[in-house]
C-alpha cells in the first residue's frame, strides 16, 4: 500500500516536471526558461526524496543537497548572465 502511494507521488512529480519542460521549450523570454529550469531542479530534488522513501535507503540523501546547490548556482549564474552580458567581470570583487 505504501508502495502504491509513493509511486503515485512519483508519477505526480514526473507530470510536474513535464509541465515545466513545456515552459522550458515554449517560454517566450530567457527568464521564463531560467524559472522553468529552477523548478525542474527543485522537483527533481523532491523526486529523489520520494525515491529514498520508496527504496527505504538513506544513501541518496547526499544527492538532495548536491542538486539543491547546483540548481541555485545555475539559476544565479544564468540570471547574472542575461542581466549583465557576462558572468565574471574585470574588477568585480563583490
Amino acid at each position: 500500500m505504501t508502495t502504491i502511494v509513493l509511486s503515485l507521488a512519483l508519477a505526480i512529480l514526473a507530470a510536474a516536471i513535464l509541465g515545466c519542460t513545456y515552459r522550458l521549450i515554449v517560454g517566450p523570454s530567457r527568464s521564463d526558461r531560467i524559472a522553468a529550469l529552477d523548478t525542474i531542479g527543485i522537483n527533481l530534488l523532491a523526486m529523489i526524496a520520494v525515491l529514498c522513501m520508496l527504496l527505504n535507503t538513506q544513501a541518496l540523501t547526499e544527492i538532495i543537497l548536491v542538486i539543491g546547490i547546483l540548481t541555485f548556482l545555475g539559476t544565479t549564474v544564468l540570471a547574472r548572465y542575461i542581466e549583465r552580458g557576462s558572468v565574471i567581470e574585470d574588477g568585480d570583487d563583490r
Partner: protein
Amino acid sequence: MAMIVEWIAIVLALIGALVCAISAFGLIRLPDVYLRSHAATKSAALGVLFILLGAFLFFWMVDGEINAKLLLAILFVFMTSPVAGHLNGRAAYRSGVKLWKGSVRDDFKDVLESGGKSAPEAVHKPEPPKLP
C-alpha cells in the same frame, strides 16, 4: 506508533507532490514572467518542504535515525529559492521583458528613472488601479 507516523510521512509526501503539480500548473498557465515567478518559487519550495519533512519523519520512525542532511536540505531550499526568484525577476526586468498588459503598478520603473535612488526618495504618484 511507528506505523502511524510512517503513514503521516507518506501522506505528507503525497501532499507535497500535489503542491508541486499545482506549481507546475501555475508555471504553464500564468501570463507573465513576473507572475510565473510566484508559482515557480514559492509553491515549489512549499511542496519540497512537505516532501523532505515527510522523508525526515519516515527515516526517524522506520530506521530510528535523525537524518541531519534532510534538515539541511530543507534549510537550504528555503534560503536559496526566494533569492533565486528575486535574481531572476530583476534580470528579466533589466533585460527588457514587458509586463503583462493587466499589471497595475510598476514601482521599479520609478526607481530606475530617478537614477537608482531607493524607493522612498523616488517620486511616486499613486494612480488609481485600472481594471484589466
